[in-house]
């Protein structure tokens, strides 16, 4: 089901949480709402769900205006950050809840509920825990029960609030990939909120970057990484060196620097070479760290204007070995690609 948000605004007292948000999400997408904490992403998700009312604007699900509808009638599935499992019910009863509270006319029979709940628990690989209580489960298991419970009512939209936020790193990695494959299996339009850009890039088919209650950019993960729309997105997504250049230093750039703007350069877009003499050196090598397949090199720029500025460069291990650099070596830089922002 497609989602259209038009001109959504929300204030908490004098704090403006969302500012004229317009967003269109086509059917079947897996969308990440990404932004730093306090940017309004969770509020936006809760407005789509109907758990929060927008001060102005409309929420359309499948072309139908649902702005005034109560959360229980929107046909959405919501997975809460801390799962919000019913702690007085077993795993089975938790998942069955949405089916059992349906009005009598459309409520499935006990046998159908039984079959459906077990099928869902199998889907999330937890059928063997069906008679446990939430307090007896691990974080990852609770998360999957919460997901099964939300899916039981066959929602047309699945909304997840920081779905991996409370899990430890290894469980999180597994669940991310699992959620992604589950999404393609079920093909439910899904939106999840995260502050972790890596998570957004890895899981989502489409990323919406929010900051201070406004949408900064939206698009496919590669699009956002390769063509950031502004300085915020460029700094927030991935690693970026922000460099100021004057005309004389233009030599190491692919194009002449526009006036008054700074260059945003990805660490892997800088080519490093040992300087043949002190005169043409651009930077001094300070330190490096192993990041697995890549090496991150920390340089200090030599410049009469901005001394002491750190620049980070990344390159594959092999390439770094061939350069045979030591700490304190002088190097030249060649920047291959830069984005210019104020």
């Amino acid at each position, binding site marked *: 089901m497609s989602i259209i948000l038009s001109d959504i605004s929300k204030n908490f007292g004098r704090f403006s949480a969302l500012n004229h948000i317009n967003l269109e999400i086509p059917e079947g997408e897996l969308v990440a709402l990404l932004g730093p904490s306090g940017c309004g992403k969770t509020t936006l998700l809760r407005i789509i769900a109907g*758990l929060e009312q927008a001060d102005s604007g409309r929420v359309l699900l499948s072309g139908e205006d649902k702005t005034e509808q109560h*959360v*229980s009638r929107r046909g*959405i599935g919501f997975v809460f950050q*801390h799962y919000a*499992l019913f702690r007085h019910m077993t795993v089975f009863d938790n998942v069955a*809840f949405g089916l059992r*509270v349906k009005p009598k006319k459309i409520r499935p029979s006990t046998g159908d509920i039984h079959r459906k709940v077990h099928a869902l628990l199998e889907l999330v690989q937890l059928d063997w825990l069906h008679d446990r209580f939430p307090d007896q489960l691990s974080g990852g298991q609770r998360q999957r029960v919460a997901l099964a419970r939300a899916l039981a009512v066959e929602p047309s939209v699945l909304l997840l609030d920081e779905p991996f936020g409370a899990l430890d790193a290894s469980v999180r990695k597994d669940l991310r990939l699992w959620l992604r494959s589950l999404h393609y299996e079920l093909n439910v339009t899904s939106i999840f909120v995260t502050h972790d850009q890596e998570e957004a890039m890895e899981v989502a088919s489409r990323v919406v970057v929010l900051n201070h209650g406004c949408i900064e950019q939206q698009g496919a993960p590669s699009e956002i990484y390769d063509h950031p729309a502004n300085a915020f997105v460029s700094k927030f997504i991935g690693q970026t060196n922000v460099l100021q250049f004057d005309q004389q230093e233009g030599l190491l750039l692919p194009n002449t620097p526009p006036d008054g703007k700074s260059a945003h350069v990805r660490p892997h877009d800088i080519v490093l070479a040992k300087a043949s003499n002190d005169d043409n050196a651009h930077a001094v090598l300070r330190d490096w760290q192993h990041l697995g397949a890549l090496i991150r090199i920390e340089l200090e720029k030599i410049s009469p204007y901005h001394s002491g500025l750190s620049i980070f460069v990344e390159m594959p291990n092999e390439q770094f070995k061939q350069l045979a650099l030591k700490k304190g070596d002088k190097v030249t830089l060649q920047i291959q690609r830069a984005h210019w922002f104020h």
Partner: protein
Amino acid sequence: MKRHSIMPGFAPSLGFTVVYLSLVVLIPLSTLVVTSFGLSFSEYLKIITHARVLASFKVSFTASLFAAFCAGLIGFVIAWVLVRYPFPGKKLFDALIDLPFALPTAVAGIVLATIYQPSGMLGRILMQQFGLQVAYKPLGIVFALIFISLPFVVRTLEPVLQEFDTAMEEAAASLGASRIKVFIHIILPNLFPAMLTGFALAFARGIGEYGSVIFIAGNLPYVSEIIPLMIITKLEQYDVPGATAIALTMLVISFLLLLVINLLQRWVRIRSGQV
């Protein structure tokens, strides 16, 4: 072999607990039992099956159970309002709840009797509109007991309501449950153990209450005499064995009732995985 526990100081703290319990609870209560042993079993039966005594047992237990039930409902609503809604003067309102704790119960009894007697401020209205007399009737006892036991219910439920995860309610709503269904299936089951505790406390408080009740009850034999009053009456006639016999019986019944409530609570907790 000596077993070591992680928590140090088991022996002194257990010793302290036993000494304290003995001095304050066990020795006085066992004196009660011992004194009543001065009676033969037939004498004991004769005292407690006396029609006036039986009537007072009935008055005390029905009034206390009914009052605890009412206090449970009213207290739940008050706790709910205090926790869930912000409103001006909330802090003051909150402080007022504890007043019955601090007030001498006799004062409460006299005030309630004055207001609810047929010519009193509220008593007159009740009398004229509904033909209902509160003071000097068993209903008066219930009113006094509700007043006395309300803070127990409110203060038991408040922290549980405060810690209640409202995301559970939102989750239930997102799954299609109406407000009523959320309340019945999510809120009530989670609060039930605390409501039982509040009920038990209110009941225990009510069964032993003396000061406020005697002023409003009218103390008519067979109608509105409570057990504590029966005990005092016996004592005033220097009938100590008779007083202890009644006291012991009351103690045993109260203990059994509280035990049943506790078992019920345990059963609820186990059934809902909250152990």
